[in-house]
């Protein structure tokens, strides 16, 4: 059964290779090849899942060693896969949602002449993401880590004839690289500390080393997670990443890749458990991001960017949970999975709306769409209810648990974190209601574009709606399915461990508070966007709104400090290289040139002049000889 693990990765990898190398011949069938191989991988995943379920909880870890990758001295890196409950969860999420989005893309990208390439990139992403979650050591994980970064780069910049897309792609990659730097430093630290960076040896030796080292490793892992999961301060790329086609936003920038940071932290639970300072940093990052993303989400008029802000915020929840330690790991992953369903569903819905609206993304030009695209409305609506934590739907179960866990952290920290999480829930309700109302309710606000083409909103084809429906089912039922009987907890506990914290508040109180927050959020949004018509042009807004529209000025900061500063630095270095470093050399050359120019004058071309010097030389020789004899 172990041998199937490699096939999980091999199937999409083969797809990517065939589609990208195959050339135009495959244009006609390329998308189906991609979808087929992705589904194949899902099927393998299901088979393996069934196999794991059939074993005891203690024996649910499969490993497969393929070959020794790098072996230099004591530095040993193997290509070994490890399939345990945690990776299994991810495998199913990735291949399942991935396959659905493949299917959706068949319709969404129908008119794009480079569709085959798109599917090639999607398959490449699947392979890399699977490698990330299946790796048995950090270095192999790093390969997947950068692999998804590459796929993300290629897909964000898929419409690279648009300069904005190309820039966004580059930005995403480079910001991610900063995070990757953290991961590589973490690996190096592990190597110097433990002499290995495979999961087994590292986790088993955590107790033998100092807390300081573990904290350092933990912080570096957190930096990596911040980059990949768009957490403050490395969150700036995610909004721009919406330049990619919507299925990409759904798959990579909502459901799977951006959650890799959470996976990394949960996977490294052994390290974080032993490094409380690092854990605290994780929770702080999570809490800040969940508010940050939520505030940004409130101000955006671009439907995808609003959803991107939401993603950031929801991942903030997960990171917060992961930072709480054993109290929160399971819920972080659970929220991750349910989020995968409803956020992917929301994005696909947004894509469907855009598909029907001539790729318009400004919500101020939507309105009243529920009549035109009923299926999209219903599926989007279910996703909406799930994300705001409507009781009984997926988001309710997972988010509620996280808020509880935050309070359960105990002490002042617990109160602050829990409060932030609650506030986040209220804001989530606000901005999601805003999105819902502006898109599907109210009067129609669309206008003809400059070419006079008025959009004719219409429902999307089946190939797109089916995945949306499936995801909507997931959004509704997944949470309940996981929670009843603590199925998910039991499933993951052997890997992540679990402990109940002592919450100062009872579970009921927290749920009640969450509900109140939810109602406040929805009510405020309804008051502002449901009761009165939405202006077609955004009002100037308060200072906070304006800042939030600009991603709370983070981009401006980056631009002024990093981009401008960097440009000045490189420009002055180019100057220095030219004038100073090269100048020293050229100056030396010029000095010798000048000197020889002057010495050259001695060579006046007159034979007699040369004869004098010869004669003088002969005289000197005679003198020298005589002197030597005299001495």
């Amino acid at each position, binding site marked *: 059964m172990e041998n199937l693990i490699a096939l999980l990765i091999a199937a999409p990898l083969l797809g990517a290779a065939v589609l990208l190398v195959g050339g135009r011949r495959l244009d006609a069938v390329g998308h189906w090849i991609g979808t087929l191989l992705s589904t194949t991988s899902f099927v393998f995943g299901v088979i393996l899942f069934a196999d794991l379920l059939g074993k005891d909880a203690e024996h649910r870890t499969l490993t497969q060693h393929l070959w020794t990758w790098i072996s230099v001295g004591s530095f040993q890196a193997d290509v070994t896969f490890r399939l345990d409950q945690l990776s299994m969860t991810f495998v199913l999420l990735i291949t399942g949602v991935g396959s659905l989005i493949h299917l959706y893309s068949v319709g969404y990208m129908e008119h794009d002449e480079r569709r085959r390439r798109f599917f090639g990139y999607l398959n490449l992403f699947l392979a890399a993401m699977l490698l990330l979650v299946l790796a048995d050591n950090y270095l192999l994980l790093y390969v997947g880590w950068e692999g998804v970064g590459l796929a993300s780069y290629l897909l964000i910049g898929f419409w690279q004839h648009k300069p904005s897309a190309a820039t966004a792609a580059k930005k995403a990659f480079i910001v991610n690289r900063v995070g990757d730097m953290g991961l590589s430093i973490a690996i190096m630290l592990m190597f110097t500390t433990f002499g290995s960076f495979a999961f087994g040896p590292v986790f088993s030796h955590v107790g033998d080393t100092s807390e300081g080292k573990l904290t350092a490793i933990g912080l570096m892992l957190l930096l990596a997670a911040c980059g990949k999961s768009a957490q403050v301060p490395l969150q700036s790329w995610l909004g721009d990443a919406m330049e990619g086609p919507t299925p990409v936003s759904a798959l990579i920038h909502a459901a799977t890749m951006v959650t890799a940071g959470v996976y990394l932290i949960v996977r490294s639970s052994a390290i974080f458990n032993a490094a409380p300072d690092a854990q605290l940093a994780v929770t702080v990052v999570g809490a800040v991001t969940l508010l940050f993303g939520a505030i940004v989400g409130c101000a955006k008029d671009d439907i995808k960017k609003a959803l991107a802000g939401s993603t950031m915020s929801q991942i903030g929840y997960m990171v917060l949970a992961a930072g709480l330690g054993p109290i929160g790991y399971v819920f972080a992953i659970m929220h991750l999975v349910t989020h995968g369903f409803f956020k992917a569903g929301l994005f696909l819905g947004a894509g469907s709306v855009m598909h029907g609206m001539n790729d318009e993304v400004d919500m101020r030009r939507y309105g009243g769409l529920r009549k035109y695209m009923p299926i999209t409305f219903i599926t989007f609506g279910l996703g909406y209810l799930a994300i705001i934590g409507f009781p009984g739907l997926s988001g309710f179960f997972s988010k509620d648990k996280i808020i509880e866990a935050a309070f359960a952290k105990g002490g002042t920290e617990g109160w602050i974190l829990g409060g932030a999480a609650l506030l986040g829930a209220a804001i989530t309700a606000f901005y999601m209601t805003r999105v819902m109302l502006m898109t599907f309710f109210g009067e129609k606000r669309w206008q003809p574009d400059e070419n006079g083409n008025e959009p004719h909103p219409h429902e999307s084809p089946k190939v797109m709606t089916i995945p949306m429906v499936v995801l909507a089912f997931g959004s509704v039922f997944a949470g309940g399915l996981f929670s009843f009987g603590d199925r998910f907890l039991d499933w993951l506990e052997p890997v992540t461990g679990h402990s109940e914290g002592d919450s100062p508040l009872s579970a009921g109180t927290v749920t009640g508070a969450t509900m109140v927050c939810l109602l406040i959020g929805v009510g405020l949004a309804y008051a502002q966007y449901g009761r009165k018509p939405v202006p077609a042009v955004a009002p100037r807004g308060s200072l906070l709104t304006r800042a939030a529209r600009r991603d709370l000025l983070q981009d401006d900061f980056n631009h002024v400090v990093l981009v401008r500063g960097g440009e000045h630095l490189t420009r002055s270095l180019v100057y220095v290289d030219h004038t100073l470093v090269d100048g020293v050399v050229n100056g030396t050359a010029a000095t010798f040139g000048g000197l020889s120019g002057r010495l050259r004058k001695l060579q*006046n071309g*007159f034979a*007699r*002049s040369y004869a*004098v010097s010869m*004669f*003088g030389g*002969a*005289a000197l020789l*005679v*003198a020298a000889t*005589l002197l030597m*004899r*005299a001495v």
Partner: protein
Amino acid sequence: MSPQLAAYTTSTGEAFQFWVLGTVAVIGALCTVFMRKAVHSALCLAGTMIILAVFYLANGAYFLGIVQIVVYTGAIMMLFLFVVMLVGVTAADSLKETIAGQRWLALLCGVGFGVLLFAGIANASLKEFAGTGKANANGNVEGLAALIFTKYVFAFEITGALLITAAVGAMVLTHRERTERARTQRELAEQRVREGKNVPPLPAPGVYARHNAVDIAGLLPDGTPSELTVSKTLRERGQVRDVSTEALNDLRALEQRAEERLERTEIEPANLKRAEEASK
């Protein structure tokens, strides 16, 4: 003679000879260097060489003494004179130095070198002179021949080859290969007509009452000498004699004499000047 040659000191006769002829030789050498005309230099050098021949004889090198006179003074110096004639016997060089500092540097080096040589010779403290008496016992020529044809036979053969090479080299250097057919008189005439230059024969050199030679330029109607009238070779050597002013000078002298005779005191230079200007 041989006992004398073997001594530290020479006979008084030889000393007398040395001091007299040595002085002359040095003067000759100096004249060689400082005479303005090459032909004078050559003659001074020939004199010095003859004196050196005498010194050879005095030092027991009889063969060399004779060879010096025959080969050097007789053949080589004559060759020099030929070339001097070819280049222009009357041409006098300016002794003005054109390269900055050359003369002083040359003198400095020369004096310095000379002092060093003298110091070297003095330092060598040469006291013992074996004399050539024994070596010349069988005759100087026989002695030389014995050495040349035994010990130095290869060098001798090689010098033979060198001489032949030199002779061939001199021929090659001075021989000018005609690369095109010599143009006939008719062709030259046709060319002159075509170019419209010098269609009639070139003007004859100046023929005057007191001068009648090919190196004197004929005067143009305005009184200026015309270079065209003198042979090209002389022109290149710069040996054109200009007598155009002589006539004027003669005229002036004549006038002056006439005035003296006529006892006129006032001379009018203005008139003369005007005449000079007109001639230019």
